[in-house]
């Protein structure tokens, strides 16, 4: 499971920032449901700007000590382009106010679309001195909108804590639903009897 495998047992407790309405704090653990999986392994990642040595690879290297540092004007953008339309449910970022202070993002906007030309904002969140993994769910209120279907996702850092110009982000993960192990089915199987008979190995 992702949570076990990738959990960085961070001893640092969650930041005790004043949780305003809708302000995310970040948790030391990456808790993701078992029925979700990381979707962006085969996607194309790019950033609007970066400092030498702190490039986009640091966002995907599963190492929380390396970070991406932007080097330009705000908003700083991380673009993720998929090879086909995918269903996405969750975006998780690892940021650390204690280490990065004014580099820590404070306002993040998530946009989705078919390409650079028709991105539309789907979610905005504000962070309050976060330390750890920040889970941003992409679902709407309506159960029909649990997933977004998109070719491209853009994570925009609109502003930082303490009005910093550039930003540090240490890791980003994107989650979506697992495909049905049995092909051509409308629903997943849940009971043991069905699952046992559902595939040949």
């Amino acid at each position, binding site marked *: 499971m992702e949570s076990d495998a990738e959990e960085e047992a961070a001893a640092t407790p969650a930041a005790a920032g004043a949780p305003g309405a809708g302000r995310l704090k970040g948790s030391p653990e990456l808790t993701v449901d078992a029925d979700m999986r990381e979707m962006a392994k085969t996607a194309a990642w790019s950033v609007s700007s970066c400092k030498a040595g702190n490039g986009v690879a640091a966002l995907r290297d599963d190492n929380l000590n390396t970070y991406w540092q932007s080097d330009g004007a705000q908003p700083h953008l991380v673009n993720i382009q998929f090879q086909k339309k995918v269903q996405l449910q969750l975006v998780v970022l690892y940021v650390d106010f204690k280490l990065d202070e004014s580099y820590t993002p404070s306002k993040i906007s998530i946009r989705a679309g078919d390409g650079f030309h028709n991105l539309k904002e789907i979610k905005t969140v504000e962070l309050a001195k976060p330390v750890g993994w920040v889970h941003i769910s992409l679902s709407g209120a309506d159960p029909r909108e649990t997933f977004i279907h998109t070719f491209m996702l853009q994570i925009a850092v609109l502003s930082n804590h303490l009005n910093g110009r550039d930003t540090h982000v240490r890791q980003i993960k994107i989650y979506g639903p697992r495909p049905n192990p049995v092909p051509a089915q409308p629903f997943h199987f849940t009971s043991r009897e069905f699952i046992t*008979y559902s*595939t040949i190995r």
Partner: protein
Amino acid sequence: METLMVDRVHSSLRLFMHRNAIFLCERLCAQFPSETNVQLLATCYLHNNQPYAAYHILKGKKLPESRYLFATSCFRMNLLREAEETLCPVNEPNMEVPSGATGHYLLGVIYRCTGRISAAAEQFTQALTLDPLLWSAYEELCILGIAEDTDECFSESTALRLQQEHTSTPTLVKSNFANENRVLSSRVSASLRDISPKQIKQLHANNIAEVSGYPHVRPTALHVQNSSTSNVPQFDTPSPTAAQTSSIMPPPLFRNVHAYQNTISGDAPTKQKANGVNQPLRRKYMDEARLKKVSGRLFNSDSTSIPRRSERLKDTATNSNSNTSQFGGNGTGHSSGSRYEVIDEMWTDNISGTSSSVSTADGRSFEQDKAERILLQDSKLALGIRELLGLFRTLGEGFRLSCLFKCQEALEVYRKLPESQFNTGWVLCQVGKAYFELVDYLEADRYFELAHRLSPCTLDGMDIYSTVLYHLNEEMRLSYLAQELISIDRLSPQAWCAVGNCFALRKDHETALKNFQRSVQLDSRFAYAHTLCGHEYSALEDYENSIKFYRCALQVDERHYNAWYGLGVVYLRQEKFEFAEHHFRRAFQINPRSSVLMCYLGMALNSLKRNKEALEMMEKAIAADKKNPLPKYQKALILLGLQKYQEALDELERLKEIAPHESSMYALMGKIYKQLNILDKAVFCFGIALDLKPPAADLAIIKW
């Protein structure tokens, strides 16, 4: 000095002192260069796992034994073309395949590895005809799916034929490590087979003449058991004495004994050379054998010697190396006592070569009682042969049926085995496999566990066992099994398959893939490892690679229906429905009893809009296995597609009784009600479905 050195070499090989043997043999070859000594050196190298050395020294040699050893070395080094060329030279189509049955077997394996199935089948059949007790040949035929009924292969007539040609071969084949043993015993019996009945008579005559000789023989039996590379010239010497001392046998016996001894040594375990020259001799004697069969029976003196042999039997738990080894010892002493040694050793080694054990002796005894009432006294031989053939019949039939996926019948056949044979690793694994194919994972689990407990070092069926645990979702036991297997043998592909299954169960497909790839690296002829790699790539949605690996699996073993199934699933996902249907059908043709396969075939047909056939297939699947809920569910799905809502609902209602806790079922019912606009029922069903906690994807659909 030469014979002394040869004797020492054999003794070293027998006692597994390979380096000593190699050293001595190299000195021997330097001092007395002759092809037979070179063959002996090659054998030493092969024993020491240095096929390249054997290859080097044997290159270009023409004697049949040399050719056989050379072919074996080539095979071990994966130089299949050369091996084939040696065994069956293109330029000389009439040259006989050396080493008789085992040569044909090796050639068959080479053909199979290079994809020439029909030629391989031919070779295996040939091998089996030459030596009916060559189990490996029969096994290969079963795997190719074209083995004939065991009643024909191991029939009464075969028994008679063997009897005429053999001295006795008690059926002390333990099912454990059965293949090796059977190969060994087959060698033994193969060699015995070549003995003409005159030989038997001679033995009987010997028994009559000098019963007292036996006690002397006993202690010598052990020390002369060296693995020999049948130095043919050495065996010439005993035979004249044999002929001379035999007062009863006519002169031709000399030839027979000669031939017999040569061929015995020749048909010894693979590393031995066969004297191809003797093959024509053998065949001639076979006919004479039938004539003499009756007279052979009149010599009952065996009975006195048998008890002694069976005692020796229990003492000497050697493997068939000893079988061949004895012949090396023959070169040394040539008193009349040694003659009996010769023959006795052949008996002993034949007996011991089939790795005797007390339990098998017991198993033999009750059959023996029955047999004795029927046959006359001499028939330890006839008895032994029949017992062995009977055992082969049962095991062979069971194996054949399970390869044809007629698992219920196979299980019945296996149950006929005596308990001692049944409670062995090989048989229990086969039984477990049969249950696995029947999708009865609980029973399979039980049997595999028993097998593993009884013989923890049999790794052969353990990959299937790990799959069974995977299906049963037993994480703990699967990881324990995997750890155990790795600790037993880190270099066995089955162990890594088990580890991979462990990770696959936890949905960590990348690590699982790594492990399966290790397994493939360890043995690229292990079809299941390729298939499992394919499954993992498919789970990672890397369809190109998964197709590649499934195809690799099929290259190794065309009847591996899991690979056909895997390809079908990939094409189904890629929406190439024609391809999917074709592959599922191929899988179905190989295993026509699997309800899961029928279900998938139905699904493919449904996607192709061939709804009538799809429904028929689903009906078949439902009938094939009552416990499988899936075909009924699929049937309902198809009916929904055909807009036959009421029938679909009926089907689902029936299904509800069998599998009441399946959220997808209720979801489907809800969907149908929604279509029918019976909204309150729809809501009700969806509610139940939600209660059963489906994954998020379903939640979205259900909450409409």
